[in-house]
């Protein structure tokens, strides 16, 4: 029995000694599968197993990315796309916010607004693309309108629910301490609804990108979507991949932006307080 215990002890000390190293390997372990996939992909492309007209090689994509960046073409299209998303978001989020305030803060407002919004919400808004082309033509308007429409609903729904779920006891206490109706809204109800509204804002950003992708396929002459659509005509899968990467990075950046906003406006939350 004693030798068994000895081996057990030896294993234990070994694993303790290598603990720091294992932790470092653990951290990078998650990057191993994607790296392996990219290497296999590159090997397959180089060996001619993967035709470039279906999937460009990682090396080509990187080179194309760099040349598009260097020529300023990518930046130009990116700015156009960002401009569309920003314009659509400003219109959509502010409309959704105003409607949620009207519906959330008064019963009469709820009767007037909420039922209509709930009905429209069930409609897949991308199905409106043909109508938007008929109404707004094929310029900038239908693209921005699509982004605005897609991003209005998430913020409306979450802000409305957030306003209605503010703790009634807090509202009651604040009214005892002499807050007027407008102070009550500004100091109690809106801050209370903010966490939920920020979740909605994050959803709004998500649908905004989705709407942009669809919108930029409507006869665009600039923007990341245009870049991708033209690349398709010339079988340039490398450019299509660059477009996909840019969309992914934009989505990631938007999420990071909301995180930063949350960190500053919800800094009273214990999870942020301790951090």
């Amino acid at each position, binding site marked *: 029995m004693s030798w068994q215990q000895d081996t057990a002890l030896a294993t234990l000390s070994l694993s303790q000694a290598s603990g720091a190293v294992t932790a470092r390997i653990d951290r990078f372990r998650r990057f191993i599968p994607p790296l392996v996939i990219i290497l296999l992909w590159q090997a397959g492309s180089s060996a001619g197993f993967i035709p470039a007209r279906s999937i460009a090689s990682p090396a080509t994509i990187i080179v194309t990315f760099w040349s598009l960046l260097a020529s300023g073409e990518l930046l130009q299209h990116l700015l156009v796309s960002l401009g569309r998303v920003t314009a659509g978001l400003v219109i959509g989020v502010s409309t959704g916010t105003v409607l949620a305030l009207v519906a959330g803060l008064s019963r009469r407002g709820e009767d007037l607004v909420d039922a209509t919004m709930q009905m429209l919400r069930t409609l897949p808004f991308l199905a409106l693309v043909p109508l938007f082309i008929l109404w707004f033509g094929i310029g900038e308007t239908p693209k921005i309108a699509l982004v605005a429409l897609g991003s209005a609903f998430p913020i409306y729904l979450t802000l409305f629910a957030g306003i209605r779920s503010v703790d009634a*006891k807090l509202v009651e206490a*604040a009214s*005892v*301490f*002499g807050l007027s109706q407008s102070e009550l809204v500004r100091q109690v109800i809106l801050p209370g609804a903010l966490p939920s509204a920020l979740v909605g804002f994050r959803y709004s950003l998500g649908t905004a990108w989705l709407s942009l992708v669809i919108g930029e396929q409507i006869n665009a002459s600039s923007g990341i979507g245009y870049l991708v659509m033209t690349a398709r005509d010339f079988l340039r899968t490398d450019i299509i991949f660059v477009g996909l990467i840019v969309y992914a990075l934009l989505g990631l950046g938007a999420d990071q932006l909301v995180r930063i906003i949350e960190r500053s406006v919800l800094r009273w939350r*214990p999870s942020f307080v301790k951090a």
Partner: protein
Amino acid sequence: MPLSAALHRTTAEPVEAARPAHERPDVVRIRGLTRSFGGPNILDGLDLDIPDGAFVALLGRSGSGKSTLLRTLAGLDPAPAGTVTVPSERTVVFQEPRLLPWKSVWRNVALGLGGRDARDRAVAALQEVGLSHRVDAWPLTLSGGEAQRTALARALVREPRLLLLDEPFASLDALTRMKMQGLVGSLWQAHRPAVLLVTHDVDEALLLADRVLVLADGRIATDIPITLDRPRRHGDPGFIRLRAKLLADLGVDEFEGDFTAQAPARPAAGRAASAGVAVPSPAGA
């Protein structure tokens, strides 16, 4: 003092060391207050006067309407029948602290206060409750006792003439509760607002109040002045006597649940029966 109020206090006049109660004006006057929530009347023609600076404890079984009475005085519940006169300078400390989590401690205390000195006043009130080190903290980082002391500071900073306490110590642990009771007692002696303390704890009422009421059947059923010297002690014979009386008025047998005590001398049929169940009978063995 109006005749009806004088008649009402036939039991006894609350004795106050500084100034006799009958020389002080009433800050609260309730006549014929009736309130129901669809069913039988919770409050049924209730009359009550609270003189300026008096510390009144209101006891009652759960569902007796003591919280309804407090909410009516706070202006949170309508008084459909009867007349209620209360000062406009009134504040409440609720059972839960009810602090706004997105405002720092001092901003919670200064809630609704205008003026440039709002922060100074809030800090002074926080100092009085021993929280000067948490002025800029977020409420969610406070302990239960600290949060309730903040709520107390928020009430104090308004310099109320009537302070309504709705079971403010009920959700605190025993040690914190004792400290808070001491704090409320000393703050009352320093500022002398009229206090209505709603509680279900007879000991708490006897420790703090100079008049104890028991609410039953929608009216003030018992109204006793507490003339014990301060600071009060649980073991004091007068304290024990009053405790027994109030518990009896609340319909509680003082020895009920006290397993170390001998069976009470007075006849208690229900208790004897339950004891019979608890002890295994020899026949069954």
